[in-house]
């Protein structure tokens, strides 16, 4: 079995270096963030701190990926 990569492991331990929102704020903003992201808008400016949170929180990241896939798939139809 391959051993965990040190850099990846340190990344999970030390978390994002930028300011981030919390899980509750992330949930509140996620729908607007995803639609803006799919439209190619400036998510960094409109939702500051949300991308770093998605990098630091696996659960919120998974839910972001699911919402993006679901809504993106609908838009592609």
């Amino acid at each position, binding site marked *: 079995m391959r051993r965990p990569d040190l850099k990846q492991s340190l990344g999970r331990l030390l*978390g994002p270096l930028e300011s981030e929102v919390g899980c509750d704020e992330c949930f509140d903003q996620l729908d607007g963030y995803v639609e803006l992201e799919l439209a190619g808008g400036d998510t960094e400016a409109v939702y500051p701190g949300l991308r770093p949170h998605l990098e630091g929180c696996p659960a919120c990241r998974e839910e972001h990926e699911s919402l993006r896939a679901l809504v993106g798939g609908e838009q592609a139809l």
Partner: protein
Amino acid sequence: MAVAQLKKTRGAGTVVFAAVKSHANLSLVPAQPVSEPLDNESRTWLRELRSVGATHDAAVARLHLLLLRAARFEVARRRPTLPHLRGNELDDIALEAANDALVSVLAKLEDFRGASRFTTWVYKFALLEAAVKLRKRAWQGREVPIEPESWSLFETGGPGPAQEVFQQELLGAVQDGITRLTPHQRHVLVALALNGVPIDVLAERLESTRGALYKSLHDARRALRTYLEEQGFDASTWFEDGR
């Protein structure tokens, strides 16, 4: 709560930003956006869900179908990671997630501000409910490890002996820094960031919430980063080879 306010144009509407004290860092996060002009479909959803009688009941039934579709989408995405669950168990989880999401959506209907289409807003409730239930189901009956188990398994080593030594020193400082955290911070950091325990599973075991545990994780990470800097490990070297 608001310390300062900035205005930022977003589409046709305006978002008011408030500088708030979030966790230990001062984070700029959008305050509740000013209501956006709603699209026709979202307006219809709100009007019918706020009505009474047959129109309301029909809208609730359609909403439930929408939520069930989103919950099944999430279950299907995670199915490969849950080989021990049978199809009917997964169907039950999706239905339960849709039911719980329906309750949440109806309770929070007045919180919808139109930052997205109504359907996108409701989907996130169903995805959250399904994801949380599936994470808990996957860890049902399993012990949650809160102590470091795998330091020796970390892949260290670089192009040469100097890099190997640097990584070993950094790893040693990380381990030392973790022992200096409060017991709660250490348990949360180790369980979530080292041992891969899902945050919802740990929240259930500790009778806490995702938001509260993430704040503890955030505080632990910040304390650990501060310790590494105090030990002479500049942030720019954490993810480098130490050359």
